[in-house]
């Protein structure tokens, strides 16, 4: 490996014929609706299995398939426990600028992708699709467009990405709003086998609509602060864990998001 920087899938610099696989577990909590009125409490765990392949030094293609567990509880003590495959995601990342071919310090990339409606549709006893909160995926074809910038300056690295998600109509006649996601991450790698990350993740969502009627508890913006550790216990294995804490919540309606935890393993084939 020419570049000693520890990078998780999606942040790496393309290297011809490089193949990486990963398993990532994510946990998050949401509270939607007014307390004692119509609140839904949602706890989600996802296992994302992904593979990334770089056919050249400029391109990386990746596929990610999540398996989703959702536990939803309503104010009337109703509960739903759902295990289902989520929406398959394909991404292509192209490096459009690098300051030099060998050990570049600056990389600018463009991102394009698509989320496929591979999740199953959960239905009630009458066969009517349940609301989106009870679904493992949106059930829509969602194009992804974005750009990224990476700077490597051993032992530091910086990663910036701006991604827009453009959902189409999905399950239960629901149309999620356009979502803009900004990530800014700084990494310090004092040792070859260990790096520390600190960053900010911002998300701005347009409101969503159900059967043409605005869902009042969608839309707005949220900013997370993130802290993470990346470790290299073996030449081919990378471990990482990140905690994301909401710093600014300006989500529309009654909607609160909780702390998110992400942990994973990357295997370089």
């Amino acid at each position, binding site marked *: 490996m020419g570049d000693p920087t520890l990078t998780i899938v999606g942040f790496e610099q393309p290297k011809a014929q490089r*193949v990486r*696989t990963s398993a990532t577990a994510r946990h998050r909590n949401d509270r939607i609706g007014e307390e*004692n*009125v*119509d609140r839904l409490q949602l706890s989600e765990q996802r296992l994302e*299995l992904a*593979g990334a*392949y770089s056919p050249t030094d400029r391109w990386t293609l990746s*596929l990610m*398939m*999540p*398996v989703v567990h959702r536990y939803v509880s*309503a*104010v*009337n*003590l*109703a*509960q*739903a*426990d*759902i*295990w*289902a*495959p989520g929406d*398959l995601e394909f991404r292509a990342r192209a490096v459009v600028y690098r300051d030099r071919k060998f050990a570049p310090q600056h990389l600018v990339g463009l991102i394009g992708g698509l989320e496929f409606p*591979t999740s*199953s549709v*959960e239905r*009630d006893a009458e066969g009517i699709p349940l609301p989106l909160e*009870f679904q*493992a995926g949106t059930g829509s074809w969602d194009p992804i467009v974005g750009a990224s910038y990476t700077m490597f300056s051993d032992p530091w690295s910086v990663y910036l990405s701006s991604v827009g998600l453009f959902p189409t109509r999905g399950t239960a006649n629901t149309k999620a709003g356009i979502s803009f996601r900004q990530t800014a991450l700084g990494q310090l790698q004092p040792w070859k086998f260990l790096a520390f990350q600190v960053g900010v993740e911002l998300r701005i969502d347009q409101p969503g609509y159900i059967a043409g009627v605005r869902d009042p508890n969608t839309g707005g913006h949220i900013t997370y602060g993130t802290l993470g550790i990346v470790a290299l216990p073996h030449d081919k294995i990378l471990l990482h864990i990140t905690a994301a804490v909401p710093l600014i919540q300006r989500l529309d309606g009654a909607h609160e998001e909780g702390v998110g935890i992400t942990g994973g393993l990357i295997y370089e*084939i």
Partner: protein
Amino acid sequence: MRSEICIGAIALTLVLPNCTMVTDGIEVDVAYRAPATPQAVRTDMGYHVKLDRALIAVGRVELLECDNFARRLWGLFVPGRARAHEESTPTSLGVPMIIDLMESSGTPLFAGTLRPPPGRYCGIRVVSAPADADAIGSTPERTEMLKNSVLLEGVVEDSETGGEVPLRALIAELIRWDLQFDEPLVFDSPRSVSISLQIDHLGWFDGIDFAQFAVLDEGAAMQQRLTENIRSSLVAERL
């Protein structure tokens, strides 16, 4: 080898069966029930009312929590939120519907299911108000119900003289019933109950002397009495 591993991992997740377990929570089914309308309704003053049309528009049904001092106190400090139009919540149904009492036969007409949080509920509020154009039961023949809560049409037969007088009553005002349950509904765990809202429209004309009202003030007092009768004709019954 590399690609086989990737494809295998992705394929594995794609073929994973999904599994959903849904546990129902607290549910309150609400239905209206009205007795069959006879050919002629005999009033307590001896008149026979033959109805051709009898419609009532119901707009909102809401479970009422038993008096909660702390919540009432909190309500004094927290301003209420205006709602542009009726909407359904776990304790209320905002689906407007027009009930044709001429078609009633004593069978329940399902209004919807409330899904309230745990608590003690002492009663139910029902509001009759002019319907929306997209209300359940709204038809081009019932456009009067877009401006009225109740419509009654028919004839009144005087049993003494045998004469018939046409009857047409339109009540535009909002009618609200706060009905108490015999015993509070106490929910502390998931369960389902049904509430029947009995509309006894056969007593709506009691106490009305049609001959007198027609002479005196062209029906305004009759309408007032009719409204009072309607107000006292609804009963909530737990099934």
